[in-house]
């Protein structure tokens, strides 16, 4: 979280943000399910200028064997950014940031995925960020849920992701890259829309208790909007009658 000095006007006098959005508007989100040939399930998501490709393999055998659990399947997640996905080229080796995000996303998906159905196996979720523009972890989580459903992994609910935050003293929905760099707070949220539970929550920045409440409320609203796009992606692939998939 920067709070960096910037020439960019984060919020003008008409309540319009630097990319033309209003404070409670998400960026454009599109999701396509089933885009890879080899993966058991997959999804491609564009969340604003974020472009993320997710592949799921599993349930499958675990190697090395000692990592498997006799009572339940395990979930393994890898969030990874391509070297060309960010402004300054990133070294392909996993950074500490990517490792932390991988863990946080895994813990956001675990409440939803019914792993006890597959003892001694693993479900692998691989999220590749091809282009990053703020809010990649929420977008990756969103894509991962669709890829898991595409793979037929049983889940109690989908998990939708969207961040709330604060910039130019206003509570905003879906923080983009500039707002993340120069704004005052970034609160990524992962939410199960039917079970109404938050499974991913982090905060970078400073919020008053009132702002925190508003962020959660506006963030859940954002997640619900994102959920509609997830539903549509699955409907388009599986339920479009007679149309070529």
């Amino acid at each position, binding site marked *: 979280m920067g709070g960096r000095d910037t020439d960019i006007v984060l919020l003008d006098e008409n309540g319009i943000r630097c990319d033309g959005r209003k404070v409670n508007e998400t960026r454009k989100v599109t999701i396509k399910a089933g885009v*890879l*040939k*080899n*993966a058991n399930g*997959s999804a491609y998501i564009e969340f604003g*200028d974020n*472009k993320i*490709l*997710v*592949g799921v*393999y599993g349930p*499958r055998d675990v190697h090395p064997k000692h990592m498997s659990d006799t009572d339940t399947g395990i979930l393994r997640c*890898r969030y*990874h950014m*391509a*070297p*060309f*996905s960010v*402004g*300054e*080229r990133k070294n*392909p080796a996993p950074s500490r940031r990517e490792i932390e995000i991988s863990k946080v996303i895994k813990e956001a998906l675990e409440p939803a995925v019914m792993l006890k159905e597959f003892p001694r196996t693993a479900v*692998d979720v*691989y999220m*590749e960020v*091809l*282009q990053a*523009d703020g809010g990649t972890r929420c977008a990756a989580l969103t894509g991962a849920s669709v890829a898991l459903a595409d793979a037929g992994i049983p889940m109690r609910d989908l998990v939708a992701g969207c961040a709330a935050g604060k910039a130019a003293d206003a509570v905003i929905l879906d923080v983009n890259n500039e707002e993340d760099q120069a704004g005052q707070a970034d609160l990524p949220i992962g939410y199960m829309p039917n079970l109404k539970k938050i499974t991913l929550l982090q905060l970078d920045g400073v919020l008053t208790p009132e702002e925190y409440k508003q962020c959660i409320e506006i963030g859940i609203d954002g997640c619900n909007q994102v959920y509609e796009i997830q539903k549509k992606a699955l409907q388009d692939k599986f339920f479009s009658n007679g149309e070529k998939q």
Partner: protein
Amino acid sequence: MSDGLIIDQLKKTQILELLQEGKRVDGRQFDEPRKLSIDIGVIPKAEGSARARLGDTEVVAGVKIQPERPFPDTGDKGMLICTAEILPIAHPSAETGPPQPHVIELARVTDRGIRESGMLDMKQLVLEKDKSVIGIFCDNAVTDHDGNLFDACSYASTAAINSCKIPKYEMQDEKPVKIEGEFIEPPITTLPVSVTMAKIGDHILVDPTLEEWGIMDARITITSNSDGNVVALQKGGSDGFTQEELIKCAELSIKVGSKIREIIKQSK
């Protein structure tokens, strides 16, 4: 992934029988590559990018350009480094973690194919001799694996570099400063294109699928440039080629390569 995938016996027998009749499983001729489609600019924020689809194999190449200190012995040349990675989404046996030897080979062959061809005139990419030069990274990410990653990475890289935009830099107070909104065209001298051939028995097959790769005896990747010269070579696999076979492979690579070169040119 290990190169030793277990192909079932029925499939192996089927492939060999068809080869004896002069046919391939997917109906292609022995010297015919799969359908290639290339889309450039798929990663708009990168300085250059391309997605190559060769049959069901898919690779995304992204070009990042930034000022770098030159290598100590080539202070009068810019830097060009190509890499390649098989993403774990690409195939069930693709692994995460430090790259295995066959992935390192893929990266290095891709790099040599682009660099040895002299695709970019590196002398034109100097900001200040011995101090600051333009560094170009072309990173390939394999997103779907159905064999012949060497060629898919070659095509994605060539297309991405061919269509990239190099930001303009000026030296100010001994430091390179980017001039926003201004770009220069990359100094392209030639378009390198690789063609990989698998040897199964006495048959030479251009652009093997993953199944053909699984039963091949040996393989060779030959990169040619726009003048029809051979610029890079890599032989792999556990068997050997005869002299005649090697000459035939070079001819095939130049012939097939020139058609692929047209597709890459069209993509810009």
